[in-house]
């Protein structure tokens, strides 16, 4: 059971990264490869706010959300808007990820930093497995944010507009929706989400610069398995990846866990390219 708990925890982090991808993807059909690095930045700011500044928990969250959201908006401006075409955007988002990694390393160094958890650090025993409160909180966060994503996208004017943009950009423009502002907004929201998660992910993973690139890939797999642009997809995809990773690590050996995730990715992409919850997109020659 402990293995399952740790798989679910990993899955929660991947799912939260996938959710961040989805927020941006739904509104602007952009895949923001640097999103996981934004989350990593969030863990560092959490460290800085908690350990260096010794701020109260509420302010830590606020600071993380604001700073990371601002960085995400900058990213949209310099790495997304001037670039046409997916190849170019992949290059620039990888560039932004690297830039962010470099800057983070300059400020905080390359050593992993321990981010203290604001809640209890006592191990719990749930369903016969050992689990930390922070891990439960991560899982809770995934469920809550995925639910918010679904609720907003289905139940508010903003959400309806978001889905309209993803279905037909031009028709959305003709309804007076400021598509560009939506794109910036999506980056800001996904950045804020990444920031808010900093103080929760940090205690689990430590604040370490190299976290971004591996999270980016696993988050991508979660999104691909769940379906591009789907909230429930991010949840299910994340958990699937987390469980595959921890279970195969447990029963086949550490070295096989990434390999199994990769196999799952290939299988989904070749057999069901839209993912489990994705929509088929019509193609025109």
């Amino acid at each position, binding site marked *: 059971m402990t293995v399952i708990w740790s798989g679910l925890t990993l899955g929660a982090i991947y799912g939260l990264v996938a959710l961040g991808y989805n927020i941006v993807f739904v509104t602007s059909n952009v*895949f923001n*490869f640097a999103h996981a690095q934004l989350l990593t930045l969030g863990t560092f700011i959490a460290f800085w706010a908690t350990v260096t500044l010794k701020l109260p928990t509420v302010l830590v969250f606020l600071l993380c959300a604001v700073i990371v959201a601002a960085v995400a908006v900058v990213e949209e401006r*310099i*790495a997304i808007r*001037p*670039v*046409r*075409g*997916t*190849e*170019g*955007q*992949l*290059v*620039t988002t*990888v*560039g*932004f*990820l*690297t*830039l*962010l*990694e*470099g*800057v983070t*390393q*300059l400020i905080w160094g390359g050593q992993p930093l321990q981010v203290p958890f604001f809640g209890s650090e006592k191990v719990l025993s749930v369903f016969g497995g050992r689990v930390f409160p922070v891990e439960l909180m991560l899982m809770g966060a995934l469920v809550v944010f995925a639910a918010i994503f679904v609720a907003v996208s289905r139940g508010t004017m903003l959400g309806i507009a978001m889905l309209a943009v993803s279905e037909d950009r031009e028709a959305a423009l003709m309804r007076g929706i400021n598509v560009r502002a939506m794109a910036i907004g999506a980056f800001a929201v996904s950045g804020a989400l990444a920031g808010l998660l900093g103080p929760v992910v940090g205690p689990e993973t430590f604040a370490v610069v*190299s976290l971004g*690139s*591996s999270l980016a*890939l696993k988050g*991508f*797999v979660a999104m*691909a398995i769940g379906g591009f642009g789907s909230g429930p997809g991010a949840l299910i995809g994340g958990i699937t990846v987390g469980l595959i990773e921890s279970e195969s690590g447990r029963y086949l*050996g*550490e*070295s*096989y*866990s*990434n*390999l199994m995730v*990769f196999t799952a*990715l*290939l299988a989904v*992409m*070749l057999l069901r*390219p839209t993912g489990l919850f994705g929509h088929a997109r019509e193609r025109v*020659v």
Partner: protein
Amino acid sequence: MDVRQLLQRIPTWAAPLVAAVVVILFPYLGIQVTVQRQVILVCILTLLVSGLNLSLGYAGELALGQAAVYAGGAYVSGYLGAHGHTDLLVQLIASAAAALVIGLITGIPGLRLGSWSLGMVSFFLVLLVPDFLNIFSTQTGGTLGLAGIAPASLFGSQLSPRSFYIAVTVLTALWLLVLRNLVTSRHGTAFRVLRESPVLASSMGISVFRMKLSAYAIGALPAGIAGCLFANLDHYLSPDSFGFDLVVSILAASILGGSASVYGAVVGATILQLGPLESTSFQKYALVIYGALLLIGGVVLSLGLAGLIRSLWVRVERRWLPRPPITTYVGEQLPSIEGATLSVDHLVKAFGGNKVLQDVSLEAKPGQVTALIGPNGSGKTTLLNMICGYYRLDGGAIRLGDRPSPHVPYKVARAGVARTFQTPSIPEGITVAEAVRSGHYATKHTSFLSAVFRLPGYRRARSIDIEEARRVLALVGLEELENDEAASLPLGTRRLLEVARSLVSSPKVLLLDEAASGLDEDEVERLADLIRRIAASGGTVVLVEHNFRLVLSLADQIYVLARGSILASGTPAEIEVHPDVMTEYLGMKVPAADSLLSTAGIDGGKDD
């Protein structure tokens, strides 16, 4: 003037050759061993970058797995070296074979995915390298690294550091020569066509599947070779050498040097290897600088250098050259063209439950211009796409001459159906002559190897390409623009160029899709004249066109498509007075309109 002429006579390969010879001779020029080591590292990075350039810069596919292929090549050679197989040639062949296998395995899913899914999958492969090394830790040494690689030998004698240096530089120079020969060959142009548009490529008879796979496979080779050389440099391999940082630096070097270039790889690799980044004081800024480089490079890449030139040209043109005179056109006679009858019999096509084409039959005969007209949504584009093999038939048949037409786009093209596009589709970075020659690509098969080694078969094919392209360019009156950048020409000229590119394959059927749209009256007249001459020489021309006057003046037979079926067909004189055609274009099919008309007071004359 003399100096300039002299300079122009020096072939373009002379400077790189001299540079290569000088670098190869470094050990004899008293260059220090530490510098030699740096040169070897530059060579290795150059090989890696040039592999990426082939797939990204030329074929337009972002495959980021070079680091993984590199690791594969390195460990295969390392393993051989540690087990007594030190011959460099054996190792090179083994590493290259391993690279080819890894390239193909990752390339095949990439064929289905494309764009960033391919980028991600190939990226993931790099993440798997340490895991693979651990799984095979008895062979690879796992996280500890692979030690005890014996020094390389050649033909039984051990290579001294000096001869190893020479081997590395010679190999790198040879690879660049191979790549240069490849990208300047007809295959190189075909890669650029693929990058511009897979639809264009298949319309020219190029198999998209084969070309993409070739680009991955050939792009993997230098990474394998680089791996082999790396294994023999320090006689030790560590998993740390093949991580995310390497991916980023390969990408950065490629962007920095220019992805669509051969020697750009050398420039990018040299700057990254010898530039300030490697010095310890700059080391900590390395990631920041790489990141900034990728950001700026990505922005420029998306515009493309040719795109920049084109927009500049358009500005210049508007300012000083309102319309570049194309004068030399004399209306040469075309040699006879062997057209074939294109016949469409009772064609049916439905998307979902929606019948787009119902029982459509038409026939286009050699020596005639057959026009297809119809209002929006009448199914013209669908019909055209079906003739070109993009959709499966739901009923009926399409025949070319006395054979059924194939259902795979590139096979349709090879069977003799050439087409132009509504928006001219012309790859960037090639000349007018090359663009026309690319239309001749599929008519003659030459292997990649014969292109690389410039074998007689290749030379023959190429001289036919050149000759045919000249002939066709003269026909359309563009021979003076032969060496101009094709994509930066004005629209009218690009349309003529597209026709020339289609003609060069001696098509049995020529499909012109809205060829006159966006042209001014002179240009329309030139185009009309060309079409008349093609038909007069025996070609089969199918014209899908909005310009009604042009259709009336050109066509021998007109088919009117409306709501998915043929409404009327006949000669221009018949169609012009055909009542159904009038009503279809004028919308008189509304029976109740009469009543509305009377309320609007049309017949009464005055409304207000």
